[in-house]
């Protein structure tokens, strides 16, 4: 009994260490702790729920539009993704992660930088954060036709289309996505826009369902429509 309590406490401390390593962006240390946890018999989904997701939850609280720093988020995101990739390499499947996090319903998200723009950094960060929360992300890349986003949503039976753009010259393409979705009979899919240019605008102006100020603002919206 004593041993078991000690073991639990040690496990809790190690999960706390993996959270801290991810928050600090120490990717190699985070993976080393994950390896140690696996060797002690900790289940991968526990590492995801109590390590990776909780670390991202901390950043979620910290990152408002006033206090959003790409550097810190990218380093933490890289550490989180390295841990997840390590768990995949240990034989865990993407579906297990999606199912077993449990906290969040299984949703598919189509992501892309819209036609006319090749800036992918913001979209890549959104992808990292959503994956670390257990969402399934289909990344369509950059300079993506609105029609291709919609077709991917139909094929993949996705719940959400995420559009990213740094430029104001892409507005017409952003506005097209919802119209094309409606023309194809896809009424249930929610469309979110974000990025330096788009976040200055409104959902009404862009003809989307939501405009996210930050990746975590977008995440809150996805959670609200997922529940």
């Amino acid at each position: 009994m004593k041993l078991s309590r000690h073991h639990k406490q040690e496990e809790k401390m190690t999960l706390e260490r993996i959270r801290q390593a991810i928050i600090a962006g120490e990717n190699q240390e985070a993976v080393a702790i994950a390896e140690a946890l696996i060797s002690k018999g900790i289940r991968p989904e526990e590492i995801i729920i109590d390590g990776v997701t909780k670390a991202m939850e901390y950043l979620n609280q910290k990152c408002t539009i006033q206090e959003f720093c790409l550097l810190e988020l990218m380093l933490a995101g890289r550490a989180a993704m390295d841990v997840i990739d390590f768990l995949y390499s240990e034989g865990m499947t993407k579906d297990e992660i999606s199912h077993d996090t449990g906290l969040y319903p299984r949703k598919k998200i189509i992501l892309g930088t819209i036609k006319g723009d090749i800036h992918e950094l913001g979209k890549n960060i959104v992808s990292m954060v959503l994956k670390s929360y257990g969402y399934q992300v289909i990344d369509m890349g950059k300079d993506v036709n609105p029609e291709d986003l919609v077709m991917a949503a139909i094929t993949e039976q996705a719940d959400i289309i995420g559009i990213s753009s740094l430029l104001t010259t892409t507005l017409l393409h952003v506005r097209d996505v919802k119209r094309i979705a409606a023309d194809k009979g896809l009424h249930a899919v929610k469309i979110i826009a974000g990025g330096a240019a788009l976040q200055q605008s409104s959902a009404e102006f862009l003809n989307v369902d939501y405009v996210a100020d930050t990746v975590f603002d977008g995440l809150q919206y996805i959670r609200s429509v997922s529940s």
Partner: protein
Amino acid sequence: MKSIDRIRSTIRFDRTDRAPVFSHIYGFASRLKQIPLKDYLNNGELMALCQLEAWKRFGYDGVTAFADNSLESEAIGSKIAYKDDAYPHIDEYCLSDIRECNKLSIPDPEEDGRMPVIMEACRILKDEAGEETPVIGTVQGPMTLAGQLLGIEKLIYSVVDHPGEFDRLLYFTTRAMIVFGKALIGAGAHVIHVFDPSSSCSVINRAVFNEYILPHLKRLFKEYKDAGNPVCWLNITGQTEPILDLFPQTGADLFNIDYLVPISVAMEKLPKHCINGNIKPFSFISDEEKGIEREAKDILRETQVRGGFILSPGCEVPLGSRVSNIDAMMKAVRADRR
């Protein structure tokens, strides 16, 4: 009062007839003349012509020799993809690994890439309008140019993975921009506008700015001051609130405030330095004239007692802006009395 005197007086916190306006109108000037953007970005004479016409049309307080954020990177060796009516982007960065940055050469502003286009535009603007209004020469800031040479994603990771090489690359980009800025001063620029959005706290944090970026900005502005005492304008768009108090250490005279930072906060943190800002750029596309006029008037009212203020959008006026919204900004400033 001539524009050039209005700007100089405002920088010194002296009284003026009204607040000056820096329009942040760049490629948008080509739209007014219905000239393809690609032609504007590749022809110094056309660029100057469009800038002069826009200046005469609206009556703001400066003309600018500036093409796009890829220009310096292209002159150093990156490959650029052009579009007819959108800004070009970098197709292939000249650096694939930050550890190779010692192989880069400083570009010659009279020879390399499209730098001569900017030099020509600057000379024409000086000849045609330089007695009346400030000629603004724009260069990329050290961090932003580094991102344009390597890719911003790799650059950000290099802050922690290769800090020595990161600093060496910033040293190179600063040297390159010292050469370009000095050439622009020689060509008649009254104002050197250092555009460094990648140094904002939307991208890096205060610690990185303080340790890595600030020393290079100090060096940059000191060199400009020594080369002819132009007005030194630092423009870090995005979120800058956590680093505003460090700005005076750069040695610049004027600081751009983007729409994300309340002007009241900027006034509090920079009580003795001239600032410009901060109408939301997207409003020039999406708002009605009354909305822009109201926003401009609110900012002018807030800054009236303090002085040391130039009205402007927070960042570039977008290409798709409505002409009537620029008129609305100017209408608000014409009613201003300092």
